[in-house]
């Protein structure tokens, strides 16, 4: 009996896998929008893949939570547009002093929490003080340079930094910048008390989360009465649900299944800041040899890999197109197996054996391509597919790996290459210096230039390989207008979405 129990735990551990198939891709067509009149009483049903583990956006990281809660349920002083530009949200206006140290925000009028309480600058101060002082709260590290948060009057908030921080305003567009009611007793894991255009009405775990329009919203009211997010972890089941009319929008469509939806749906390809990162353990031999790292990059046929994955664009450096500091770095690296072999010979690594540690939910497509590409230059790749928590422990925390693959989805996370303690193990004083200069630079354009310079060095050092920049495919029914396209894996702003009764 006890043996059975143990076996049960083992089976549980073994059985958790997700399959992502791959072949060749269909080409989505340009968007057509609805022609019927919007129905203000409509319910919008959206299919998604990853369900949040809980709704406590203050303490839990993850795109699945941010995606639906930010801008819809909770709001910050500022927010980001689809192309990652910063704009005011709760703040009607904000100013940054010339020395880049003082941020002054003016609040919009009539903002209220969902429980009816009016929002004042005191709530902002309390929320941000929590982020600053509580290390368990998301964004605590981003608030390290905050000296003080004060409210000169009921509609003004002033934040003073100890040093200029180019990333600070952008950090406020994330979970760190959201405003919660001071001393609120709401259990944030399962309920909410935000200020956004929607309220949470129901969460039936494992299947749906439902929002209702907030008719007392301080700004422009939402265009639909209700939104139902349906969580469908299986890609095929998602497509079937869309074809059966259960959802009018399907996000994160599997590129290989996308053609099935053509005709009934408009397919959009959205840009993201997802960087499919093949990390090299820069501190570990033989990967501490730049020739080996370059050889590995030269041996990867990026175009063929993207073809196999089915969506995405090439990315040859650490900064994606939607982030400041992006430039096309395709001149740094090419596909050249012959040169790769030469470099490996030069480095004395003709019979190299490496292990790739990859969280199992990324499937087998990428490992398969890498195995065959590396094989052509005499590198044997072993694949160690692990559960995500195991990856976090072995790779992220203990840096115990050769090569690793994860999708780094966070925008503006170039700082990881300026952090020698990050799991990349990349330690370059020049890059670190350029990065801190970029952070301290008050002029955004100059800051971006410094970032671009640092990013080029990182790529020329072959600190990692960026297999592709992810694209997200969304299928939208012709009855739906205004559904966002870009970055929707981190934000689905529903404010401007409408559904018409007729096609």
């Amino acid at each position: 009996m006890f043996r059975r129990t143990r076996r049960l735990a083992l089976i549980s551990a073994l059985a958790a896998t997700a399959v992502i198939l791959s072949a060749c891709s269909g080409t989505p067509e340009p968007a057509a929008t609805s022609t019927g009149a919007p129905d203000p009483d409509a319910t919008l049903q959206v299919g998604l893949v990853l369900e949040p583990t809980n709704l406590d956006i203050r303490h839990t990281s993850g795109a699945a939570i941010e995606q639906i809660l930010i801008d819809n349920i909770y709001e910050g002083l500022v927010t980001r547009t689809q192309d990652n530009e910063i704009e005011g949200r709760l703040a009607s206006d904000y100013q940054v002093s010339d020395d880049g140290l003082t941020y002054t925000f003016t609040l919009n009028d009539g903002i209220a929490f969902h429980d009816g309480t009016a929002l004042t600058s005191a709530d902002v101060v309390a929320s941000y003080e929590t982020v600053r002082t509580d290390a368990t709260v998301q964004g605590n590290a981003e608030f390290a340079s905050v000296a003080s948060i004060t409210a000169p009057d009921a509609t003004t908030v002033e934040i003073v930094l100890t040093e200029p921080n180019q990333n600070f305003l952008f950090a406020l567009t994330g979970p760190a910048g959201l405003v919660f009611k001071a001393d609120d007793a709401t259990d944030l894991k399962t309920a909410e008390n935000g200020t956004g255009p929607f309220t949470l009405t129901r969460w039936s775990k494992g299947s749906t989360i439902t929002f209702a329009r907030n008719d007392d919203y301080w700004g422009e009211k939402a265009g639909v009465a209700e939104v139902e997010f349906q969580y469908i972890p299986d890609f095929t089941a998602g497509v079937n649900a869309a074809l059966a009319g259960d959802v009018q929008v399907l996000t994160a469509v599997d590129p290989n299944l996308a053609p099935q939806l053509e005709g009934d749906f408009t397919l959009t390809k959205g840009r993201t800041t997802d960087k499919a990162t093949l990390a090299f353990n820069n501190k570990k031999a033989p990967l501490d040899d730049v020739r080996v790292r370059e050889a590995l990059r030269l041996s990867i046929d990026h175009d063929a890999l993207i073809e196999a994955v089915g969506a995405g664009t090439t990315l040859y450096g650490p900064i994606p197109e939607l982030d400041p500091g992006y430039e096309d770095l395709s001149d740094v690296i090419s596909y050249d197996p012959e040169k790769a072999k030469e470099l490996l010979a030069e480095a004395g690594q003709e019979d190299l054996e490496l292990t790739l540690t990859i969280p199992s939910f990324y499937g087998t497509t990428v490992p398969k391509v890498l195995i065959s590409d590396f094989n052509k230059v005499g590198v044997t790749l072993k694949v160690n597919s692990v559960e995500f928590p195991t990856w976090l422990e072995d790779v992220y925390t203990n840096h115990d790996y050769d090569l690793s693959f994860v999708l780094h989805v966070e925008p503006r996370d170039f700082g990881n290459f300026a952090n020698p303690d990050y799991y990349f193990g990349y330690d370059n004083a020049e890059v670190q210096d350029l990065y801190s200069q970029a952070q301290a630079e008050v002029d955004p354009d100059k800051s971006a230039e410094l970032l671009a310079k640092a990013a080029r060095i990182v790529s020329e050092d072959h600190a990692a390989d960026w297999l592709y920049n992810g694209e997200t495919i969304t299928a939208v029914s012709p009855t739906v207008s205004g559904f966002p396209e870009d970055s929707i894996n981190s934000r689905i702003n529903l404010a401007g979405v409408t559904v018409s009764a007729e096609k």
Partner: protein
Amino acid sequence: MIRYALVRGALLIAGLLVSSVLIFLTLRVFPGDVAQLIAGTQASPAEVEALRESLGLNQPLLAQYADWIGGIFRGDLGTSLLSGASVSEELFLKAQVTVPLGIMSLLIAVLIAVPFGILAAILRGRRGGTALSVGAQALAAVPVVWAGMMLIVVFSVWLGWLPPQGFPRTGWSTPGKAIKSLLLPALTIGIVEGAMLMRFVRSATLQAAGQDFVRTAAAKGLTRTRALVQHGIPAVGLSIITVLGLQVAGIIVGSVVIEQLFTLPGIGRMLVADVGTRDLIKVQSELLVLTGFVLVVGFLVDLLHRAIDPRQREAA
């Protein structure tokens, strides 16, 4: 009888305690923890450490165990570290898939095992009997996952009669749909477990056939087969109850695998997901409930057996 029940009950409690320690320790072997998962890939080690502290993951193992088991004694299965939901609520919710699945599987197993097992006993030594026995041996050795995939291929892909996976969003408010979606998974477990059970039914029947009272009946002029059916089978039923208790454990293990394969939102799938997120408090309680269920079934079967079968009492 009372004394026996008390002794057997004490054994049950001891068994549960030992299980709880085993479960608790086994789960601590897994690499990674829920704090890392919650903090994500942009968190500094200090942030993860602070989170660990606030979740109570830094407490000594003994204190963590005492906390958990203390709650169990108060009837509190704890709350999920991740979702903040009460474990008992979630168990109850998911049981609405797993319990019907288990009952259906058991029914199918019995429906397969009893007639075919008796038939195999009657046809013993003939070609048909041998074929049945070999078939049962083969089926019992089939991995549940493979059986499930074969059934999906036949009934969903080729014939299109049953859905290949999933459970209706509407749940039991649409009973027809719900039962339909559980049919294939139940059939999968039922066939494999039924094949095991069938071999047992066959040998129990043969044993019964050799009993004095069956021989007496046959001597009175009944054919051997009729003597067996009229007098032997009731005795067989008794032994089957005992084995069914053991089958319950098999069905639970089967349902963990099968719920993955058929993406059913049941306890098995939840268990796998919770191990995947290292929500250990939740996994502990879930496993303890499942183990407890198996042990309690064993306990009841033993009592029942003793109450029904006079020979057991004499032996004691």
